[in-house]
């Protein structure tokens, strides 16, 4: 973007939002050059920190008038480069929008601004015995706006679902600068298309959420957290399958393999049973009687599947200790490898043993190590591909294995991402999972919201669709017919 355009835009935004809301110094802008996926970097031309919905609207309108692309960013914890700035564009950071606007327990709802940190919602209502269910591992820092963009899940989504099941409505600023409500703030639904359902998970390509209405849940009466130690990952996987087959719905079911356990032990000294080739963490929650029954059933199924030790957390501190190892796993692999790639893929749960064996085989063939941490309950794998960038060829080998794992996920009928999103990182992988027609159809939605393509360009889709372009059989319609139909639409 030419310097004059940047200066004019900065001046306009300073007038409308105030001096402090606009960041122009290069060093300051550079702190925003990447999100949680640090190997993609771009310094935005401007960083803007709006204080409320009206200021977001002012930014989007100013960008629209100048024809400048923009990217929204919450806390910057995303792992797919979804908040990677556009070098010539504006980065809209929601971190000043941190107000919890309303808590309404009688209707089990809260209305929050997009910069509110995930955990802050539960903290605000926990005294009264309520909480907000989606709990991504980054919930201490990640923002609700980012959760909306990514349709975030978390360890407990196997039972409770994702962000899309817990956000009933939201106010968004569309790329043409309108503030629009999608869904309903407090009621179960609103008439018309389910635009909230498609906006959530659209990775910032359809607009910016400016207010988010979330559903609150009653804290369950009882929670039981168990840790079962197995000799092999296959046994831990079989135990998970047996739990599901028994008709139990655990709130969480997480597996770590030997390498991931080793890393966690070094990092946080979690004290998992020595000699374990895999641990399975299972949490059941709900009414006390059923939790007691399910705990006994899970324990028996684990033992039957070969568990040599099953621990049940006796209190909150012990529960915390079990979770600490699991939740620290990503960062912990830094203790056993100088570099690593965090992968995110999904397989049908029933393909677990076969897929893990294949990952082992691929890693061995490439001469690198892969640590496995995954949400076993829903087949969401997080292979951590370890490498040493100072060894020639290792980075490439790691990238190759990491990519091959995604292909493997797709070939089993799974997905290239269960929760980290497509972002910039996996846009090129989308055609592995979706046909050109599938991607074209998704982009019809994009064209409806953002015909100019200014919202987070270059993310999710490998190739942008020119809005207004007429694909396939539609091109058969002659010009006169199309003009007549356009006139009909204008006359609605």
């Amino acid at each position: 973007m030419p310097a004059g355009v940047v200066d004019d835009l900065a001046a306009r935004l300073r007038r409308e939002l105030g001096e402090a809301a606009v960041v122009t110094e290069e060093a300051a802008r550079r702190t925003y050059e990447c999100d949680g996926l640090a190997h993609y970097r771009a310094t935005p031309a401007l960083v803007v920190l709006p204080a409320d919905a009206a200021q977001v609207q002012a930014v989007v309108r100013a960008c629209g008038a100048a024809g400048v692309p923009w990217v929204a960013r919450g806390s910057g914890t995303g792992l797919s480069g979804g908040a990677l700035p556009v070098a010539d564009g504006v980065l809209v950071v929601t971190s000043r929008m941190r107000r919890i606007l309303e808590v309404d327990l009688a209707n089990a709802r809260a209305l929050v601004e997009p910069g509110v940190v995930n955990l802050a919602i539960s903290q605000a209502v926990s005294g009264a015995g309520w909480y907000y269910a989606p709990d991504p591992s980054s919930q201490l820092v990640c923002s609700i706006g980012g959760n909306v963009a990514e349709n975030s899940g978390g360890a407990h989504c196997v039972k409770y679902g994702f962000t899309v099941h817990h956000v009933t409505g939201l106010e968004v600023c569309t790329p043409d600068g309108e503030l629009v409500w999608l869904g309903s703030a407090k009621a179960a639904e609103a008439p018309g298309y389910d635009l909230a359902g498609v906006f959530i998970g659209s990775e910032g390509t359809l607009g910016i959420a400016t207010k988010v209405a979330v559903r609150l849940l009653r804290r369950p009466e009882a929670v039981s957290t168990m840790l079962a130690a197995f000799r092999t990952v296959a046994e831990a996987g079989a135990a998970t399958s047996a739990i599901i087959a028994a008709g139990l719905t655990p709130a969480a079911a997480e597996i770590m393999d030997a390498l991931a356990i080793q890393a966690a032990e070094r990092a946080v000294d979690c004290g998992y049973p020595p000699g374990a080739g895999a641990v399975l963490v299972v949490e059941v929650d709900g009414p006390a009687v059923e939790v007691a029954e399910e705990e006994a059933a899970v324990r028996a199924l684990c033992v039957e599947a070969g568990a040599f030790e099953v621990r049940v957390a006796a209190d909150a501190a012990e529960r915390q200790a079990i979770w600490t190892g699991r939740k620290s796993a990503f960062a912990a692999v830094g203790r056993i490898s100088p570099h690593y790639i965090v992968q995110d893929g999904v397989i049908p749960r029933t393909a677990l043993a076969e897929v893990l064996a294949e990952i082992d085989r691929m890693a061995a063939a490439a001469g690198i190590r892969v640590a496995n941490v995954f949400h076993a309950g829903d087949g969401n794998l997080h292979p951590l591909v370890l490498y040493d960038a100072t060894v020639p060829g290792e980075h490439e080998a790691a990238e190759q294995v990491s990519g091959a794992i995604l292909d493997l996920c797709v070939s089993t009928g799974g997905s290239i991402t269960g929760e980290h999103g497509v972002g910039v990182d996996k846009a090129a992988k989308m055609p592995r999972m979706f046909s050109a027609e599938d991607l074209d159809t998704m982009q019809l939605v994009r064209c409806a919201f953002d015909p100019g393509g200014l919202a987070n360009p270059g993310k999710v889709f490998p190739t942008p669709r020119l809005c207004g372009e007429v694909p396939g059989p539609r091109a058969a319609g002659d010009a006169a017919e199309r003009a007549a139909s356009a006139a009909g639409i204008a006359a609605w």
Partner: protein
Amino acid sequence: MVDVLAQLEAACGGGHARAAGPGDAVGGVPARWVAAPGSTAQVAAVLRAAAEAGLAVVPRGAGTKTGWGAPPSTVDVVLETGRLSGVAEHSPGDLVATVGAGTPLRALAAALVPAGQRLSLEVGSAEATVGGVLATGEAGPLRLRHGAGRDLLIGAELVRADGVVAHSGGRVVKNVAGYDVGKLLCGSYGTLAVLTSATFRLHPLPKARAWVGRAVRSPQELRELVGGVLAATVEPVAVEVDLPGDGGLSGTVVALLEGTPGGVAKRAAATQELLGPDAWVAPEPPPWWGRYPFAAGDAALKLVAQVDDLHAALYALRDAAGAGVPVRGSAGTGVVFAALPGTTEPARLSTILDSVRSVLAARGGSCVVLAAPPSLAGAVDLWGPVPGLSLMRRVKEQFDPDRRLSPGRFVGGI
């Protein structure tokens, strides 16, 4: 003049297209042809043929809700999904199933029973198909715990108005790749694309169920009882109300508990205590459970309120329509249905809608006329205010620029 019937026959195979009869009308608008494609490719062929001939197409499942929505402006071809039927894939270990859009929900339920599983979607139109239930956004009592169809749908196959076949989502429950176009089709009344196949997440069948209910004398009492049950830790999967309309605003509130035999017994006792001395526990649902209060020919209303405000909507409805309006539905989610006589004058219906909507609108709720006799449906505002309508028009314009799919049946004349 193109021989449309021959073209539709060519698209669907011999004997699967015919001239429409009086029973094929949609919202009182007569149809010209009926086509029953037997595969996704045949659906695409029908839509391409319709596009070439400039014909409007209205998809139909079992036809249980052809009177829902606004009367379409034109119905040339009724596209019947009945042959797109059956469970294509059921993976019990993954708790997912892929089914043809024309599969009756009941048939799907029966197919899942041997595996001890269910689709947690039980709706009021008993014969309805998967496609029809999704397209109209129907959801029954289990919505409180499991959400509506959009919350259970994890993958969709669809055919666009231009005949292009596309997919979204997949066959795994956890998946955030790409836009969730399937959700957009839920509740779209067949105005964006024709759904041909749906993949759902399933749940285990509960080992035990118990219904706990009691009489309610007023909406205010209903509010207190429902609030008490939802704030407790008894975790009902449904809380339903039935106000038959024959005794003022009194009726029955019933909560459904599901779980293990031991757990359900204990929670049923706890729920009974919450509801007070007159409450009862039953192993079977009451006869009205999950059924709509309206019948064919009625003006059928859907009231959507925030849970703690449902009473205000019920009082407003009574004040505007007088006593005797049957109301039934999910007090636990704030979504209830009401029946007004189909002979209600349009002006009177409008007055009733205005007053109920003004109470609901202030609280983010809505009141939609789901179905009404054609003369009435054409004369009143069926939907009320629709936030985001201009965006919705833009979505429609992208998916169906020539307005061939169910034209006029949806909000704002979409």
